[in-house]
């Protein structure tokens, strides 16, 4: 008997990333559109669907239009459209269609989106059926998500082959607080996922605020600032380690945004992709300084989507400086990238040195 698999896409998820909006919850996606953001879910959805190998063992139910139907062709097999939606879609559509799919016998639900979408799915179906979560949002801190669209496809295959399921966390960060540079997250609930641990992203670990961690960040900051070249543009990613570096440079820093420093002066605050590309045109020497997300190790593709593939390519792999405290880096399997551009991801793979203290580095594998 075939497995009935549902597909729900949040068409606006991830649009805020490249324009620096840190999310598209509520009405923010309209602002993202005004700022010229392009949808990112179509590519993610197609990447996932086209890589599922056990198509013949699946009966596909999809949400209407851009919430699923439009991408179902990539699946290359008949499908059934469930529910109806208007021109503008909303969280309520996600919840309603998810519930309807489950009531009509879906055994596995694929959804494409970010933490907000995961929250909606949880509200609608709780633990009634397992899910495969394809990462496409700006904020993807929940461990429920696959590490990439490719990994999500393999999880679907694993489910069809009969793998068991496990519980993973749904977290959410308050977008209002996030935009105001405050990090406020909470555990929202649990969803069931196929138990393929290596394909799941570890959840974001709580920031370590112990004294040693504070000291460790100061050590890193002292070393980075000692090595600073005043003729180079520095793009500082989000996070408290970068905040410590900015403090050592004596410039202000948005905790969750991307800021730029040149010659000891702040030349850009809370930049979006357009702003970064503008600066890259003006400065010949440039470096990106980023810190991995605690717990899952992402340096690109989560949390700091303003570092788009175009930005990363222009700066170049050799000009990426990764920093992180010993404790944080020691607890990671590896560093991870998921920029949405597979070629770039593969280019970023291999080993990178992470500055973990004063004149102290750790060579860590980057995986995609």
């Amino acid at each position, binding site marked *: 008997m075939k497995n009935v698999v549902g597909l729900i896409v949040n068409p606006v998820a991830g649009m805020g990333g490249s324009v620096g909006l840190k999310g598209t919850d509520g009405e923010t996606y309209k602002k993202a559109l005004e700022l010229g953001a392009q949808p990112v879910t179509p590519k993610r959805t197609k990447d996932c669907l086209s890589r599922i190998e056990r198509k013949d063992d699946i009966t596909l139910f999809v949400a209407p239009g851009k919430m699923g139907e439009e991408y179902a062709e990539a699946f290359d097999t008949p499908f059934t459209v469930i529910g109806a939606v208007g021109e503008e879609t909303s969280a309520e559509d996600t919840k309603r269609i998810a519930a309807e799919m489950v009531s009509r016998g879906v055994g596995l639900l694929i959804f494409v989106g970010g933490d907000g979408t995961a929250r909606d799915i949880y509200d609608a179906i709780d633990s009634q059926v397992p899910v495969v979560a394809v990462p496409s949002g700006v904020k993807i801190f929940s461990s429920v998500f696959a590490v990439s669209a490719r990994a999500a496809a393999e999880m679907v295959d694993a489910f069809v082959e009969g793998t068991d*399921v496990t519980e993973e966390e749904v977290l959410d960060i308050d977008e209002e607080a996030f935009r105001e540079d405050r990090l406020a997250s909470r555990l929202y609930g649990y969803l*069931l996922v196929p138990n393929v641990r290596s394909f799941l992203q570890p959840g974001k670990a709580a920031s370590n605020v112990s004294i040693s961690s504070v000291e460790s960040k100061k050590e890193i900051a002292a070393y980075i600032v000692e090595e600073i070249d005043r003729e180079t543009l520095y793009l500082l990613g989000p996070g408290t380690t970068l905040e410590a570096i900015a403090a050592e440079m004596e410039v202000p820093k948005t905790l969750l945004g991307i800021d730029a420093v040149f010659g000891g002066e702040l030349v850009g605050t809370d930049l979006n992709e357009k702003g970064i590309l503008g600066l890259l045109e003006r400065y010949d020497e440039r470096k990106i300084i980023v810190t991995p997300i605690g717990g899952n190790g992402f340096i690109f593709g989560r949390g700091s989507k303003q570092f788009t593939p175009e930005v990363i390519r222009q700066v170049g792999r050799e000009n990426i400086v990764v920093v992180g405290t010993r404790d944080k880096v020691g607890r990671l399997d590896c560093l991870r990238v998921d920029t949405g551009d597979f070629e770039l991801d593969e280019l970023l793979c291999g080993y990178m040195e992470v500055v973990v203290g004063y004149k102290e580095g*750790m060579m860590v594998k980057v995986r995609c």
Partner: protein
Amino acid sequence: MRETIKLNMNEVPYLPPREVIKAAQKGLAKLNRYADPEDLGRLRGLLADYSGVPEEHVVLSPGSDILLREVIHTFSKGRKVIIVSPSFFSTVQAAKQFATKLVSLRLSPPEFDFDLNLLMDELQEPCLVIIDNPNNPTGKILLDRQAVEAIIESTDTLLVVDEAYYEFSGVTFADMVHDHPNLAVTRTMDKAFSLAGARIGYVIAGEAFRDTFSSFYAFLPQPSLYAAIEALNHPDYVRRNVQRVVEERERVWRTLNELAVHVCQSTTNFLVVNTEIPDIVKRLRDIGILILDLSNQLPSGFVRVSIGTGEENDAFIAGYMKIRAAYLNGMQMNAGFRG
């Protein structure tokens, strides 16, 4: 009340032979005296024979961790220190304390592979490389002879190989020390000799290290010294120890594997388990079984379990599976799915 089962320190669970214990007792009768240099010389000679190296290469110490610390302290000046991560805790601590420039080469789970090319790329300046082989805590052999040769042929590189678990792995580079002045091998009698309480360590040092160690003179405790000499006169028990531990290790590994527990293969007297159960260390401690939490060096979920006696290992397996069943049962109750 049942005695605590200690599977957290990589000790061998069997006592040394009676002769060795008696020798230690003989040492107690001389507690008011420092060790006799002649006795120290005898031990040095016996260790040289045991290791198949000339005596002048052997330096004694109360514990190999002290030697590693001394090596890092002395030879890190003007050199980049390179270690692997995770690694023996004392090495990591000393490297962090003394190195002016430190690079850790990450061994990433689940394979924990060591990338020799990555290390070779780092050897472009004077370096001190310290690698535990087999690695603690992964239990994996990281170096072979070819790799050691490549490293020690690099310009101005000193290599220290920590062979604390050599008797279990059977892999050693001690015989290379005589021809390679920039190689040193550290060892211990704590493990395979069942002498953790005696704390006898030694380094088989190449020429480049020996000048420094010529002034490193360890007065070992009398009971330890006498026990170590007697132990080396009866090395058969070491082979029996190793055989029993390896058989038990393989049995525990097979059993856990059959029970679908993620456990890494090992060439030592311990295993690394990757568990989904939160607080497993505490939960086992609550039922009297001690294992080591590795969350300070590896992602959460990794723990290290030493191989104990058959009974102790059975108790661990039973305790672990009981805790796991309760945990999974609780998960299923919460999920209310697929009942």
